[in-house]
């Protein structure tokens, strides 16, 4: 299983185009989305500047892009080509495949997170304590595993042609409802309550709590952990159950 994890990471690193665009995309969006805003302008009553809000939002968004879009379509295609059938004829347990796929996705998401944070610290002059930078990077990275697992599950449910549009729906839905594009502060209370139980909002909230100098909320962590277990479990189950003509 170690070899599989290593090979999956290696393959991802060898796919230079995908790595490059996954890294540039969120960085570019971050720069564009904060172009017109004043340096000290604050978002509602959150106590965060627009720049700080979008830095975490775009780091999260970039990680989501990398793991969700990369995984779902590639897995669906591998299934179609029959590699997964071949792999199922080995002693590899279901969790091995899912672990390797999530690890490969995490390889892409880490640099895309770091680039946004570095841009924030240098070009956008966001100031925070060292522990805050580290904590934001780690929590955003760890949180991206939830969406990586979702990507694996979609890759298992959908055909290669359908995987991209389906992951798009999840990706835009979860990112939009997570307040990654438009701050959630002006939204109705009931909607803010509902989105607190979807994975997007708790994901962005991890980093935003840290920016405010707090630890991430236990509820956000719990919600994300539940989704991770759900998506990863579903993916592993689908891997072993995949008795359709792949």
């Amino acid at each position, binding site marked *: *299983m*170690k*070899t*599989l994890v290593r*090979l999956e990471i*290696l*393959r991802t690193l*060898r*796919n230079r185009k995908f790595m490059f665009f996954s890294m540039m995309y969120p960085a570019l969006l971050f720069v564009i989305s904060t172009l017109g805003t004043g340096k000290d302008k604050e978002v509602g009553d959150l106590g965060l500047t627009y720049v700080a809000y979008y830095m975490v939002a775009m780091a999260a968004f970039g990680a989501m892009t990398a793991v969700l879009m990369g995984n779902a379509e590639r897995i669906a295609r*591998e299934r*179609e*080509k*029959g*590699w*997964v*059938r*071949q792999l*199922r*004829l*080995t*002693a*590899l347990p279901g969790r091995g495949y899912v672990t390797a796929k999530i690890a490969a996705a995490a390889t892409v998401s880490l640099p895309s997170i770091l680039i946004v944070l570095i841009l924030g610290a240098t070009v956008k002059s966001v100031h925070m304590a060292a522990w805050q930078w580290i904590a934001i990077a780690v929590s955003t990275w760890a949180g991206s595993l939830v969406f990586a697992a979702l990507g694996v599950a979609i890759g298992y449910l959908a055909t290669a042609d359908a995987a991209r549009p389906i992951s798009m729906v999840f990706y835009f839905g979860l990112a939009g409802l997570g307040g990654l594009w438009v701050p959630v502060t002006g939204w109705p209370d009931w909607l803010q309550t509902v989105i607190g139980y979807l994975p997007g909002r708790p994901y962005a909230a991890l980093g935003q709590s840290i920016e405010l100098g707090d630890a991430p909320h236990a509820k956000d962590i719990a919600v994300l952990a539940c989704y991770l277990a759900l998506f990863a479990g579903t993916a592993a189950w689908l891997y072993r159950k995949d*008795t359709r*003509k*792949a």
Partner: protein
Amino acid sequence: MTVTATNGATGPTVQTGAPVVGFSGVSKSYGAVRAVADVSLELHPGETVALLGPNGAGKSTALDLLLGLKNADGGSVRVFGRTPAQAIAEGRVGAMLQSGGLMEEVTVRELVGLACELHPRAYPVDQVLAAAGIADIGSRMVNKLSGGQEQRVRFALATAGANDLIVLDEPTVGMDVSARQAFWATMRGQVEEGRTVLFATHYLEEADAIADRVLVLHQGRLIADGTAAEIKARAGARRITFDLEGAIDEAALRALPHLVGLEITGPTVRIRSDDADATTHAVYGLGLYPRNLEVAGLGLEQAFLAITDAATAANAYPAGAGGDEAGKR
């Protein structure tokens, strides 16, 4: 199920008791199509078995069921007395699928190394590469291989460890004649080490030359099971062809001794017989004067067509015309 990895494993374990493969009353349908219908069979240690059938006969489905890639609707599939998944987890089964894709963006050596790492009773990577004849392309990227090289990589994946059963689904498709010969030479080595080999093919000469047992699958049913020689005999080992003048008395011809099949086209009579001498003698005995008489041996291919046609007719499906024309598929 954990089995200690033994990198020094030298050969398959000796089987005792349970048959290598046991199908009992196995069925699998896709909607209204019965891909595999009530198949029962047993494979025994050391056998080399060919699974023959025309396209769509259910060969691939039968192998998928055997390997646990699909679940049977009815009946039971056992491999070494266990479920297919258990047998695979124990590293007793290696398989080369026609539809088995390969991981891309890695080298041949990396991929085969992965198969070795995952196998509970793996051989060293170099040994596997050498046995599959791909030691020289170990550093090549998998997505840059030719079709024949890909097949060899698949073969390496199927033989990464000390399997007791090797399952091959049309293993030589896409290989030229010399590659095919080299492949079967490698495969014979596996057989000599005491492994059981099951291969699906539609190259009948392969079944004839390599298998010591032939299973014929047609429309999901197992319609013949025996040695190649037995199957030829069953189909009528010889073909007798002659022309007759005037009206042909079909009933009289049908009553000929040792007649297995009869076909009349205009003045031409084609007979399949399991004793051509006796049948020919009886033709003269009827007072007939056959012209252009020819007696020829049936190849396994013709035998196969004869058996599947008979089965088609028996199943009351619209019969494919032409009993034993050579080369007809």
